[in-house]
């Protein structure tokens, strides 16, 4: 192996300086080196979207990036969304209201993808929502309740709608 490389990265507002193997995946760096296990790995080839994080504010797949590429950048993970006391943010809360998760494994990637999507498109219609999450695979929900959750978060659907 080559010499380790220095990574200076801000994750969820905390700056980390680590020496890592050049080949270390960003997903492994987050999960193992930083202990942020909320980012899940489902396919390791960039298709399922479970590992989606925000990289300088944009959705990115941590499983097909190297930790070294994060040097000098800012990352947000699922652990950044709730308030420090654990209070769910409106999108998280909408997922609970709409039963937008079952096993919860794809959920962190869904939430990070949607965090950026709703920031850029606060009042999406249903086709736009479906398009937005079409790069995130979910085997449990059939996506319908996820769509409802996004609509609740966007204020286009009542919280108690059936």
């Amino acid at each position: 192996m080559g010499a380790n490389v220095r990574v200076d990265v801000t994750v969820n507002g905390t700056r980390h300086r680590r020496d890592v193997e050049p080949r270390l995946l960003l997903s492994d760096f987050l999960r193992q080196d930083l202990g942020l296990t909320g980012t899940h790995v489902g396919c390791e080839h960039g298709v399922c979207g479970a590992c989606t994080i925000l990289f300088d504010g944009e959705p990115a797949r941590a499983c097909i990036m190297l930790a070294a590429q994060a040097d000098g950048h800012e990352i947000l993970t699922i652990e950044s969304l709730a308030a420090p006391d654990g209070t769910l943010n409106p999108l998280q809360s909408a997922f609970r209201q709409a039963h937008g998760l079952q096993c919860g494994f794809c959920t962190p990637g869904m939430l990070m993808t949607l965090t950026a999507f709703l920031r850029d498109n606060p009042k999406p219609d249903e086709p736009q929502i479906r398009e937005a999450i079409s790069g995130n695979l979910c085997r449990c929900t059939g996506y319908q309740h996820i769509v409802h959750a996004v609509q609740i978060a966007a204020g286009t659907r009542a919280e108690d709608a059936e």
Partner: protein
Amino acid sequence: MTRPSFGQRVRRNEDARLLTGRAMFVDDVNLPGMLHVAFVRSMMAHGTLKGIDAAAARQRPGVVAVYTAADLGDYCKPGPVLVNPPPVPGHVFHGCTQLPLAKDKVRYVGEPIAMIVAESRYVAEDALADVIVDIDPIDAVVDLEAALKPGVPLVHPHLESNAAAHVVQRKGDYVAARAKADIVVKRRFLYDRGVAAAIENRAVAVDWDPRAEEMTIWDTTQAPIPIRNGLAKMLGLLESQVRVVAPFVGGGFGPKIMMFYPEELLLPWAAMRLHRPLKWTEDRQENFYATTQERGQVHEAEMALSKDGRILGVRDWFLCDTGAYDPYGLTIPINTQCTLLGPYDIPNYETEFTSVFTNKPIVTPVRGAGRQHGVFVSERLLDIAARELGIDRVEIRKRNLLGPDRFPHNHEIMFQDSAPLVYDSGNYLPTLEQAAEIIGYDKFIREEQPRLRASGKRVGVGICCYVEGTGIGPYEGARVTVEPSGTVRCATGVGTQGQGHFTVLAQIVADALGVGVEDVRVVTGDTREFHWGTGTFASRGAVVAGSACHAAAMSVRGKILDLGSAILGAPADNLELSGGRVKVAGSNDPGIAFGDLAGRANPLRGAVRPGTEPGLESTAYFGPDRGSTASGVHAMIVEVDPETAAVEIKRYLVVHDCGTIINPLLVEGQIHGGVAHGIGNAFFESLVYDDQAQLMNASFMDYLLPTATDVPPIETAHRETPSPFNVLGLKGVGEAGCIPTGAVFAQAVEDALGPGAGVEINEIPMSPNQLFELMHVSGKERA
């Protein structure tokens, strides 16, 4: 006693942990000094294993150990047959199970050959390339029909052929019925399935504490208790020395209940030798090879009917792929045999199957578990008969449904749980009528379809019935405890893979005790908490574990009433439980909080009266003689692009009956996910093996799971025909969404293309490419 939470759209107790990234999955277990495991797997589907040279791997810095079959000694034994065949007279079953690591022979691509333990997963994977495996190839057995021909290589050479099992089941006299029939429709059907594709791959982490002599295993299993029991026996430990935890599991869908996977056997064994924690996490490519899957069946089936469309009998003969080994017995083909009967009155039935060894990964149940295949055969035969007899598709189904006065209904054949196939209850006609009404069946075929056809659109409607045998035994248990804090704890053995156990089981307990759903803490899938039970499969969690939770909670309720009666000086009949307190009904006295009562029931001084037990705690079990049968109707409207053969699903409706509904929100979630899985099965997902049983599409780039733009909004309607087989009237719903999807898809697409197209869909999956070819060939034949 009322059940205030039943039927309410209660939000889930488990969600906050999952939504914040705090929920623990197996791959999240990171322990100091942990070693990481990778497996050398066979690159060939069939061959003689001549030699393994692991010397270079052992020399690689960071590699701690490399194990092959030779290193395992007596531990290298074939695993157990997990499910023994039901006692069908005359059945033949050859149980062949795999070794933890291959010895002498490899039988599928992905079969583990050597285990590498290293300081990191990266180093372990580096070392995979260091291991030289010498395999003398043998022609692979791929095709089901070819597999049984003389002279074909044998997957298991000690057997006479590649037949793994043969079962004939009969009801009535089909031959006599056929002789009286006005019409017999006969077809050949192919129904293939795919991978379960839980988004979380499998994983095992093990911590052996040599000083305490205790082992903790975190496992993505659907059956932690049998895993613990089996491992304890194999490792020479007491069951109490082994704790298996199935924490949050990222989807199961069946394959996570295969026992035992080699990885589950090998990591604990190695941990006891290396005295360091170990972890293995499957990657997605391995999942395509090394995790069990469901695959194809080939049916030759016929249905004999009277001219008014009444089914006189059905004969079905099929082959069933079981893969390289058959640890799961006959569950899948028996499910196929039984589910083919559906909601119909089929007086004469002859069903025969041969399951076949092939050089492909092991087949075990995937959501639906063979039921799809049976439903496809009977629904397609009904469609064809309807067409030939000039009877409407809904009408022919109505004429054959079992009436509500026919329950319990004994079908006189054996189900997968080794009990006779008896339907507990059902009310099928209103379900079908409601589905036809909601989808607007009559209006669609009378008005909309002709109008749209006239404008060049190819639109069609499909409508199919199904039943789902759910909630089978043997049993589950639960322990309900009121803690001195007042918190109610409910521990059960069935692990969760996202179904909502933390909520549904809490609802059952909460309603029995008069507390809030959020006040009940459910613990599942941890053998330290509860160690009697089997697992999560066959849509049985809510039915079987739920009934056990109810029984335990009712027993605790009795203890609360007894003690409350003594303390409050009022007869138990006059007491009420609400808000976590027991009080005299109608009194202004606040009574006693459960927590205080729990403290009184576990005194530090004084005596526990004879005939009573300390604490407010009870354990109960529920073991049904047989399962409860859920049912439903799916309907869909599709539009087919005549140029590209793309199918757009315009509407999808599920009217289903899973008995008493605990939580409609979660039931809908189960159905949505099942339908999405079914749509994938019908149109997108296909495992493509070449002629040497190499899987050609082992990635999510090539194996297409349905995405949010592929799955339409799914309309649902609930009906409730309670099961008489359990106190709460429950039936399962976990697999309902995916069972008839292929059948309804085929019918709707055929209807869209119209009678003039000459297209008959007798095969699933039916990808756009296949459909295009079918349309093209039919067109040419017509020309």
